[in-house]
Protein backbone atom coordinates (compact mmCIF):
# COMPACT_ATOMS: atom_id res chain seq x y z
CA UNK A 1 0.00 0.00 0.00
CA UNK A 2 2.61 2.46 1.12
CA UNK A 3 4.87 1.81 -1.86
CA UNK A 4 2.20 2.79 -4.36
CA UNK A 5 1.36 6.10 -2.77
CA UNK A 6 5.05 6.75 -2.44
CA UNK A 7 5.82 6.29 -6.08
CA UNK A 8 2.94 8.46 -7.13
CA UNK A 9 4.12 11.21 -4.86
CA UNK A 10 7.64 11.03 -6.21
CA UNK A 11 6.54 11.23 -9.83
CA UNK A 12 4.20 14.12 -9.33
CA UNK A 13 6.63 16.40 -7.64
CA UNK A 14 9.54 15.42 -9.87
CA UNK A 15 8.57 17.87 -12.61
CA UNK A 16 9.94 21.16 -11.20
CA UNK A 17 13.48 21.91 -12.33
CA UNK A 18 14.72 22.42 -8.82
CA UNK A 19 15.77 19.03 -7.46
CA UNK A 20 13.26 18.91 -4.63
CA UNK A 21 13.34 15.18 -5.16
CA UNK A 22 16.90 14.64 -6.29
CA UNK A 23 18.26 11.13 -6.49
CA UNK A 24 19.69 11.38 -3.02
CA UNK A 25 16.38 12.51 -1.60
CA UNK A 26 14.42 9.78 -3.31
CA UNK A 27 16.81 7.34 -1.70
CA UNK A 28 15.83 8.78 1.70
CA UNK A 29 12.30 7.71 0.96
CA UNK A 30 12.91 4.34 -0.63
CA UNK A 31 15.84 2.94 1.36
CA UNK A 32 13.98 2.43 4.63
CA UNK A 33 11.38 0.32 2.83
CA UNK A 34 13.78 -2.50 2.19
CA UNK A 35 17.55 -2.41 2.59
CA UNK A 36 17.59 0.03 5.50
CA UNK A 37 14.30 -0.96 7.09
CA UNK A 38 13.89 0.39 10.64
CA UNK A 39 12.58 -2.89 12.02
CA UNK A 40 14.34 -5.65 10.13
CA UNK A 41 17.72 -4.01 9.61
CA UNK A 42 18.12 -1.16 12.10
CA UNK A 43 16.33 -3.08 14.91
CA UNK A 44 14.30 -0.07 16.08
CA UNK A 45 10.76 0.14 17.38
CA UNK A 46 10.34 -3.54 18.15
CA UNK A 47 8.15 -3.17 21.23
CA UNK A 48 5.16 -1.75 19.44
CA UNK A 49 5.74 -3.90 16.37
CA UNK A 50 5.03 -6.94 18.50
CA UNK A 51 2.56 -5.60 20.99
CA UNK A 52 -0.05 -3.85 18.84
CA UNK A 53 -0.13 -6.25 15.91
CA UNK A 54 -2.86 -8.54 17.19
CA UNK A 55 -5.35 -7.15 14.67
CA UNK A 56 -5.23 -4.97 11.55
CA UNK A 57 -7.27 -2.04 12.82
CA UNK A 58 -5.23 -0.98 15.85
CA UNK A 59 -2.09 -1.64 13.82
CA UNK A 60 -3.19 0.71 11.08
CA UNK A 61 -4.01 3.41 13.62
CA UNK A 62 -0.67 2.85 15.31
CA UNK A 63 1.15 3.16 11.98
CA UNK A 64 -0.62 6.45 11.24
CA UNK A 65 0.13 7.75 14.74
CA UNK A 66 3.81 6.88 14.44
CA UNK A 67 4.00 8.47 11.00
CA UNK A 68 2.50 11.70 12.29
CA UNK A 69 4.78 11.86 15.32
CA UNK A 70 7.94 10.85 13.49
CA UNK A 71 7.52 13.28 10.58
CA UNK A 72 6.60 16.24 12.80
CA UNK A 73 9.30 15.50 15.37
CA UNK A 74 11.92 15.15 12.64
CA UNK A 75 10.94 18.52 11.16
CA UNK A 76 10.83 20.31 14.52
CA UNK A 77 14.13 18.94 15.79
CA UNK A 78 15.79 19.54 12.45
CA UNK A 79 14.60 23.15 12.48
CA UNK A 80 15.93 23.60 16.02
CA UNK A 81 19.11 21.64 15.47
CA UNK A 82 21.51 24.59 15.68
CA UNK A 83 20.03 25.95 18.89
CA UNK A 84 19.92 22.78 20.97
CA UNK A 85 22.89 22.44 23.34
CA UNK A 86 24.51 19.07 22.89
CA UNK A 87 24.47 18.01 26.54
CA UNK A 88 20.73 18.27 27.05
CA UNK A 89 19.62 17.24 23.58
CA UNK A 90 18.02 13.99 24.76
CA UNK A 91 15.69 15.84 27.11
CA UNK A 92 14.82 18.41 24.45
CA UNK A 93 14.00 15.64 22.00
CA UNK A 94 11.93 13.80 24.57
CA UNK A 95 9.91 16.90 25.41
CA UNK A 96 9.18 17.65 21.76
CA UNK A 97 8.15 14.06 21.09
CA UNK A 98 6.11 13.84 24.29
CA UNK A 99 4.13 16.95 23.37
CA UNK A 100 3.39 15.57 19.91
CA UNK A 101 2.34 12.24 21.38
CA UNK A 102 0.05 13.98 23.86
CA UNK A 103 -1.67 15.68 20.90
CA UNK A 104 -2.02 12.41 18.99
CA UNK A 105 -3.34 10.74 22.14
CA UNK A 106 -6.00 13.38 22.64
CA UNK A 107 -7.05 13.32 18.97
CA UNK A 108 -7.42 9.55 19.05
CA UNK A 109 -9.33 9.68 22.30
CA UNK A 110 -11.74 12.17 20.77
CA UNK A 111 -12.32 10.56 17.37
CA UNK A 112 -11.57 6.89 17.79
CA UNK A 113 -12.22 5.95 21.38
CA UNK A 114 -12.38 2.15 20.86
CA UNK A 115 -9.02 1.94 19.22
CA UNK A 116 -7.58 4.34 21.76
CA UNK A 117 -8.65 1.98 24.52
CA UNK A 118 -7.24 -1.01 22.72
CA UNK A 119 -3.87 0.59 22.20
CA UNK A 120 -3.80 1.75 25.85
CA UNK A 121 -0.24 2.44 26.93
CA UNK A 122 1.27 1.85 23.52
CA UNK A 123 0.26 5.28 22.24
CA UNK A 124 2.23 6.78 25.10
CA UNK A 125 5.11 4.48 24.33
CA UNK A 126 5.58 6.11 20.92
CA UNK A 127 7.65 8.58 22.96
CA UNK A 128 10.23 5.96 23.69
CA UNK A 129 9.74 4.17 20.40
CA UNK A 130 13.31 3.76 19.29
CA UNK A 131 12.42 4.66 15.71
CA UNK A 132 11.56 8.20 16.73
CA UNK A 133 14.56 8.73 18.99
CA UNK A 134 16.88 6.84 16.65
CA UNK A 135 15.96 8.93 13.60
CA UNK A 136 16.13 12.17 15.58
CA UNK A 137 19.61 11.31 16.81
CA UNK A 138 20.93 9.82 13.61
CA UNK A 139 19.34 12.09 11.02
CA UNK A 140 17.34 15.12 12.12
CA UNK A 141 20.13 16.58 14.23
CA UNK A 142 22.41 16.83 11.22
CA UNK A 143 20.15 17.59 8.27
CA UNK A 144 17.81 20.22 6.88
CA UNK A 145 14.06 20.10 7.66
CA UNK A 146 12.95 19.00 4.18
CA UNK A 147 15.38 16.07 4.14
CA UNK A 148 14.40 15.23 7.69
CA UNK A 149 10.76 15.16 6.64
CA UNK A 150 11.48 12.75 3.79
CA UNK A 151 13.54 10.59 6.11
CA UNK A 152 10.68 10.55 8.60
CA UNK A 153 8.18 9.58 5.91
CA UNK A 154 10.42 6.86 4.52
CA UNK A 155 11.12 5.32 7.88
CA UNK A 156 7.56 5.39 9.06
CA UNK A 157 6.40 3.73 5.85
CA UNK A 158 9.10 1.11 6.31
CA UNK A 159 7.80 0.58 9.82
CA UNK A 160 4.17 0.60 8.70
CA UNK A 161 4.46 -2.09 6.06
CA UNK A 162 6.26 -4.47 8.40
CA UNK A 163 3.76 -4.13 11.25
CA UNK A 164 0.84 -4.36 8.83
CA UNK A 165 2.30 -7.54 7.37
CA UNK A 166 2.69 -9.06 10.83
CA UNK A 167 -0.81 -7.99 11.83
CA UNK A 168 -2.22 -9.47 8.62
CA UNK A 169 -0.84 -12.92 9.37
CA UNK A 170 -1.57 -12.74 13.07
CA UNK A 171 -5.19 -11.72 12.67
CA UNK A 172 -5.81 -14.09 9.76
CA UNK A 173 -4.32 -17.17 11.41
CA UNK A 174 -5.18 -16.17 14.96
CA UNK A 175 -8.88 -15.51 14.59
CA UNK A 176 -9.67 -15.96 10.89
CA UNK A 177 -10.58 -12.30 10.55
CA UNK A 178 -9.29 -9.25 8.72
CA UNK A 179 -10.14 -5.78 10.04
CA UNK A 180 -12.59 -7.57 12.34
CA UNK A 181 -14.50 -9.14 9.42
CA UNK A 182 -14.58 -12.92 9.25
CA UNK A 183 -12.84 -14.12 6.07
CA UNK A 184 -12.08 -17.75 6.81
CA UNK A 185 -14.93 -20.30 7.07
CA UNK A 186 -16.49 -20.81 10.48
CA UNK A 187 -14.88 -24.23 10.86
CA UNK A 188 -11.52 -22.50 11.29
CA UNK A 189 -10.81 -22.65 15.01
CA UNK A 190 -8.31 -19.83 15.35
CA UNK A 191 -4.73 -20.36 16.43
CA UNK A 192 -4.18 -19.05 19.95
CA UNK A 193 -0.40 -19.13 19.60
CA UNK A 194 -0.55 -16.43 16.94
CA UNK A 195 -2.45 -14.11 19.25
CA UNK A 196 0.10 -14.52 22.02
CA UNK A 197 3.33 -12.52 22.35
CA UNK A 198 5.39 -15.62 21.73
CA UNK A 199 3.77 -16.26 18.36
CA UNK A 200 4.43 -12.68 17.33
CA UNK A 201 8.11 -13.03 18.12
CA UNK A 202 8.50 -16.18 16.08
CA UNK A 203 6.51 -14.71 13.18
CA UNK A 204 8.71 -11.62 13.14
CA UNK A 205 11.80 -13.83 13.25
CA UNK A 206 10.63 -15.72 10.19
CA UNK A 207 9.67 -12.50 8.40
CA UNK A 208 13.16 -11.13 9.02
CA UNK A 209 14.61 -14.35 7.67
CA UNK A 210 12.63 -14.02 4.45
CA UNK A 211 13.46 -10.35 3.97
CA UNK A 212 17.13 -10.82 4.65
CA UNK A 213 17.51 -13.79 2.37
CA UNK A 214 15.96 -11.64 -0.35
CA UNK A 215 18.14 -8.56 0.05
CA UNK A 216 21.23 -10.48 1.12
CA UNK A 217 21.84 -8.61 4.36
CA UNK A 218 23.94 -10.70 6.75
CA UNK A 219 24.59 -9.82 10.36
CA UNK A 220 27.87 -10.75 11.98
Amino acid at each position, binding site marked *: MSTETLEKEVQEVKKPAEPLFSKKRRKLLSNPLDEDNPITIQVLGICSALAVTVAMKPTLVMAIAVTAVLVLANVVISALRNTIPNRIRI*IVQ*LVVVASLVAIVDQVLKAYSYDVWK*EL*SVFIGLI*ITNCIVMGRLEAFALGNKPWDAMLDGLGNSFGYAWIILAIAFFRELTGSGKLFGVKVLPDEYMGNGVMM*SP*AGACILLGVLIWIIR*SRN*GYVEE
Partner: protein
Amino acid sequence: MENLLNIFVKSIFIDNMIFAYFLGMCSYLAVSKKYKTAAGLGMAVIFVLGITIPLNWLAYNYLLKEGALTWISEDFASIDLEVLKFIVFIAIVAAFVQLTEMAVEKFSPSLYNSLGIFLPLIAVNCSILGGALFLPTRDYEFVEAVTFGLGSGIGWFLAVVSLAAIREKMAYADVPKPLRGLGITFIIVGLMAFGFMSFGGFELPFKNKEQQEQAEAEKVAQSEEQNLPISAVNNSK
Protein backbone atom coordinates in the same frame (compact mmCIF):
# COMPACT_ATOMS: atom_id res chain seq x y z
CA MET B 1 2.48 -7.77 53.29
CA GLU B 2 1.15 -10.84 51.53
CA ASN B 3 -0.31 -8.60 48.93
CA LEU B 4 3.10 -7.07 48.34
CA LEU B 5 4.68 -10.47 47.85
CA ASN B 6 1.96 -11.19 45.34
CA ILE B 7 2.69 -8.08 43.33
CA PHE B 8 6.38 -8.81 43.50
CA VAL B 9 6.15 -12.35 42.17
CA LYS B 10 3.58 -11.33 39.59
CA SER B 11 5.66 -8.50 38.17
CA ILE B 12 8.75 -10.69 37.92
CA PHE B 13 7.33 -13.82 36.35
CA ILE B 14 3.75 -13.50 35.18
CA ASP B 15 3.59 -9.93 33.94
CA ASN B 16 7.20 -9.94 32.89
CA MET B 17 8.02 -6.69 31.09
CA ILE B 18 9.63 -8.48 28.18
CA PHE B 19 7.66 -11.67 27.75
CA ALA B 20 4.18 -10.40 28.51
CA TYR B 21 4.31 -6.81 27.29
CA PHE B 22 7.39 -6.54 25.04
CA LEU B 23 8.57 -3.43 26.82
CA GLY B 24 12.20 -2.42 26.47
CA MET B 25 12.69 -4.69 23.47
CA CYS B 26 15.13 -2.48 21.57
CA SER B 27 17.79 -2.30 24.22
CA TYR B 28 16.97 -5.86 25.20
CA LEU B 29 18.00 -7.09 21.77
CA ALA B 30 20.88 -4.67 21.46
CA VAL B 31 22.75 -5.49 24.66
CA SER B 32 22.08 -9.20 24.91
CA LYS B 33 25.06 -10.22 22.80
CA LYS B 34 27.37 -10.47 25.79
CA TYR B 35 26.51 -11.67 29.26
CA LYS B 36 28.51 -8.94 30.96
CA THR B 37 26.91 -5.95 29.26
CA ALA B 38 23.50 -7.54 29.69
CA ALA B 39 24.02 -7.84 33.43
CA GLY B 40 25.21 -4.21 33.57
CA LEU B 41 22.16 -2.83 31.82
CA GLY B 42 19.90 -5.15 33.79
CA MET B 43 21.22 -3.73 37.06
CA ALA B 44 20.74 -0.21 35.80
CA VAL B 45 17.15 -1.00 34.84
CA ILE B 46 16.37 -2.42 38.29
CA PHE B 47 17.80 0.71 39.89
CA VAL B 48 16.05 3.22 37.64
CA LEU B 49 12.69 1.42 37.66
CA GLY B 50 12.85 1.04 41.44
CA ILE B 51 13.21 4.78 41.87
CA THR B 52 11.29 6.34 39.00
CA ILE B 53 8.11 4.29 39.47
CA PRO B 54 7.57 5.65 43.01
CA LEU B 55 8.52 9.15 41.79
CA ASN B 56 6.01 8.92 38.98
CA TRP B 57 3.45 7.52 41.37
CA LEU B 58 3.86 10.63 43.51
CA ALA B 59 3.61 12.88 40.48
CA TYR B 60 0.51 11.11 39.27
CA ASN B 61 -1.33 11.02 42.57
CA TYR B 62 -0.43 14.48 43.83
CA LEU B 63 -0.23 16.42 40.59
CA LEU B 64 -1.92 14.87 37.60
CA LYS B 65 -4.92 12.82 38.64
CA GLU B 66 -8.34 14.44 38.67
CA GLY B 67 -8.72 16.13 42.03
CA ALA B 68 -5.09 15.42 42.89
CA LEU B 69 -4.34 19.05 43.63
CA THR B 70 -6.73 19.29 46.58
CA TRP B 71 -3.74 19.24 48.93
CA ILE B 72 -3.06 22.80 47.80
CA SER B 73 -6.57 24.11 47.96
CA GLU B 74 -10.10 22.72 47.81
CA ASP B 75 -10.78 24.88 44.77
CA PHE B 76 -8.65 22.64 42.57
CA ALA B 77 -10.83 19.59 43.06
CA SER B 78 -12.11 19.68 39.49
CA ILE B 79 -8.76 20.09 37.79
CA ASP B 80 -7.64 17.13 35.71
CA LEU B 81 -4.11 17.35 34.36
CA GLU B 82 -3.91 13.85 33.00
CA VAL B 83 -3.25 15.19 29.50
CA LEU B 84 0.18 16.18 30.72
CA LYS B 85 1.12 12.75 31.99
CA PHE B 86 3.38 11.88 29.06
CA ILE B 87 5.46 15.00 29.39
CA VAL B 88 5.67 14.82 33.17
CA PHE B 89 6.56 11.13 33.27
CA ILE B 90 9.21 11.31 30.60
CA ALA B 91 10.67 14.49 32.07
CA ILE B 92 10.96 12.82 35.47
CA VAL B 93 12.61 9.76 33.96
CA ALA B 94 15.02 11.70 31.78
CA ALA B 95 15.95 14.15 34.51
CA PHE B 96 16.45 11.38 37.04
CA VAL B 97 18.64 9.40 34.67
CA GLN B 98 20.77 12.41 33.88
CA LEU B 99 21.12 13.28 37.58
CA THR B 100 22.12 9.75 38.52
CA GLU B 101 24.65 9.69 35.74
CA MET B 102 26.30 12.85 37.05
CA ALA B 103 26.15 11.70 40.67
CA VAL B 104 27.60 8.30 39.91
CA GLU B 105 30.33 9.84 37.77
CA LYS B 106 31.36 12.11 40.64
CA PHE B 107 31.14 9.78 43.63
CA SER B 108 31.94 6.35 42.29
CA PRO B 109 34.06 6.27 39.14
CA SER B 110 34.35 2.48 39.22
CA LEU B 111 30.59 2.04 39.26
CA TYR B 112 30.35 4.67 36.55
CA ASN B 113 32.68 2.68 34.36
CA SER B 114 30.63 -0.46 34.67
CA LEU B 115 27.16 1.12 34.66
CA GLY B 116 27.59 4.64 33.35
CA ILE B 117 27.52 3.99 29.64
CA PHE B 118 24.15 2.31 29.99
CA LEU B 119 22.43 5.05 31.92
CA PRO B 120 21.73 7.40 28.98
CA LEU B 121 20.31 4.41 27.09
CA ILE B 122 17.79 3.86 29.84
CA ALA B 123 15.99 7.16 29.41
CA VAL B 124 14.59 5.79 26.17
CA ASN B 125 14.00 2.26 27.41
CA CYS B 126 10.29 1.58 26.94
CA SER B 127 10.07 -0.49 30.08
CA ILE B 128 10.70 2.54 32.29
CA LEU B 129 8.04 4.72 30.70
CA GLY B 130 5.79 1.72 30.18
CA GLY B 131 5.92 0.91 33.88
CA ALA B 132 4.98 4.48 34.67
CA LEU B 133 2.11 4.42 32.18
CA PHE B 134 0.68 1.30 33.82
CA LEU B 135 0.28 3.24 37.06
CA PRO B 136 -2.93 5.12 36.13
CA THR B 137 -4.58 1.87 35.07
CA ARG B 138 -3.68 0.01 38.26
CA ASP B 139 -4.65 1.47 41.60
CA TYR B 140 -1.50 0.89 43.58
CA GLU B 141 -0.71 2.22 47.02
CA PHE B 142 2.68 3.86 47.39
CA VAL B 143 4.39 0.78 48.84
CA GLU B 144 2.80 -1.38 46.20
CA ALA B 145 4.15 0.93 43.52
CA VAL B 146 7.66 0.55 44.94
CA THR B 147 7.30 -3.24 44.91
CA PHE B 148 5.95 -3.17 41.39
CA GLY B 149 8.88 -1.07 40.21
CA LEU B 150 11.49 -3.31 41.78
CA GLY B 151 9.76 -6.49 40.64
CA SER B 152 9.49 -5.32 37.05
CA GLY B 153 13.15 -4.35 37.09
CA ILE B 154 14.19 -7.75 38.37
CA GLY B 155 11.99 -9.42 35.76
CA TRP B 156 13.72 -7.43 33.04
CA PHE B 157 17.13 -8.27 34.48
CA LEU B 158 16.27 -11.96 34.52
CA ALA B 159 15.06 -11.88 30.93
CA VAL B 160 18.07 -10.04 29.54
CA VAL B 161 20.63 -12.14 31.39
CA SER B 162 19.07 -15.41 30.33
CA LEU B 163 18.83 -14.33 26.70
CA ALA B 164 22.47 -13.22 26.77
CA ALA B 165 23.51 -16.59 28.18
CA ILE B 166 21.67 -18.39 25.39
CA ARG B 167 23.12 -16.12 22.71
CA GLU B 168 26.66 -16.68 23.92
CA LYS B 169 26.16 -20.41 23.48
CA MET B 170 24.60 -19.75 20.06
CA ALA B 171 28.03 -18.77 18.78
CA TYR B 172 28.74 -22.48 18.31
CA ALA B 173 25.60 -23.16 16.33
CA ASP B 174 25.44 -23.15 12.56
CA VAL B 175 22.52 -20.85 11.85
CA PRO B 176 21.45 -20.15 8.24
CA LYS B 177 23.09 -16.91 7.14
CA PRO B 178 20.07 -14.64 6.66
CA LEU B 179 18.62 -15.84 9.97
CA ARG B 180 21.75 -14.95 11.91
CA GLY B 181 21.59 -12.23 14.52
CA LEU B 182 18.19 -10.62 14.79
CA GLY B 183 16.10 -13.35 13.19
CA ILE B 184 17.21 -16.24 15.35
CA THR B 185 17.16 -14.01 18.42
CA PHE B 186 13.48 -13.31 17.84
CA ILE B 187 12.72 -17.00 17.57
CA ILE B 188 14.62 -17.64 20.81
CA VAL B 189 12.70 -14.85 22.54
CA GLY B 190 9.47 -16.40 21.27
CA LEU B 191 10.40 -19.77 22.73
CA MET B 192 11.41 -18.15 26.01
CA ALA B 193 8.06 -16.37 26.09
CA PHE B 194 6.37 -19.76 25.76
CA GLY B 195 8.36 -20.87 28.78
CA PHE B 196 7.32 -17.85 30.77
CA MET B 197 3.68 -18.37 29.79
CA SER B 198 3.72 -21.45 31.98
CA PHE B 199 4.09 -19.14 34.98
CA GLY B 200 0.68 -17.77 34.05
CA GLY B 201 -0.83 -20.98 35.39
CA PHE B 202 0.66 -20.45 38.82
CA GLU B 203 -1.68 -20.20 41.73
CA LEU B 204 -0.30 -17.38 43.83
CA PRO B 205 -0.52 -18.56 47.40
CA PHE B 206 -1.11 -15.25 49.10
CA LYS B 207 -4.58 -14.00 48.44
CA ASN B 208 -7.42 -12.59 50.40
CA LYS B 209 -10.94 -13.47 49.44
CA GLU B 210 -11.62 -10.55 47.18
CA GLN B 211 -8.53 -11.19 45.14
CA GLN B 212 -9.36 -14.84 44.82
CA GLU B 213 -12.65 -14.02 43.16
CA GLN B 214 -10.88 -11.60 40.90
CA ALA B 215 -8.35 -14.27 40.04
CA GLU B 216 -11.10 -16.66 39.09
CA ALA B 217 -12.52 -14.11 36.69
CA GLU B 218 -9.07 -13.44 35.30
CA LYS B 219 -8.46 -17.11 34.77
CA VAL B 220 -11.56 -17.42 32.65
CA ALA B 221 -10.39 -14.51 30.57
CA GLN B 222 -6.92 -15.97 30.40
CA SER B 223 -7.99 -19.32 29.13
CA GLU B 224 -9.56 -17.54 26.19
CA GLU B 225 -6.66 -15.25 25.71
CA GLN B 226 -3.03 -15.36 26.75
CA ASN B 227 -2.65 -12.49 29.11
CA LEU B 228 -2.15 -9.73 26.55
CA PRO B 229 -4.13 -6.62 27.37
CA ILE B 230 -4.92 -5.63 23.80
CA SER B 231 -5.90 -9.02 22.57
CA ALA B 232 -8.07 -9.54 25.61
CA VAL B 233 -10.09 -6.45 24.77
CA ASN B 234 -10.03 -7.40 21.15
CA ASN B 235 -11.50 -10.80 21.68
CA SER B 236 -14.33 -9.61 23.85
CA LYS B 237 -15.68 -7.50 21.03
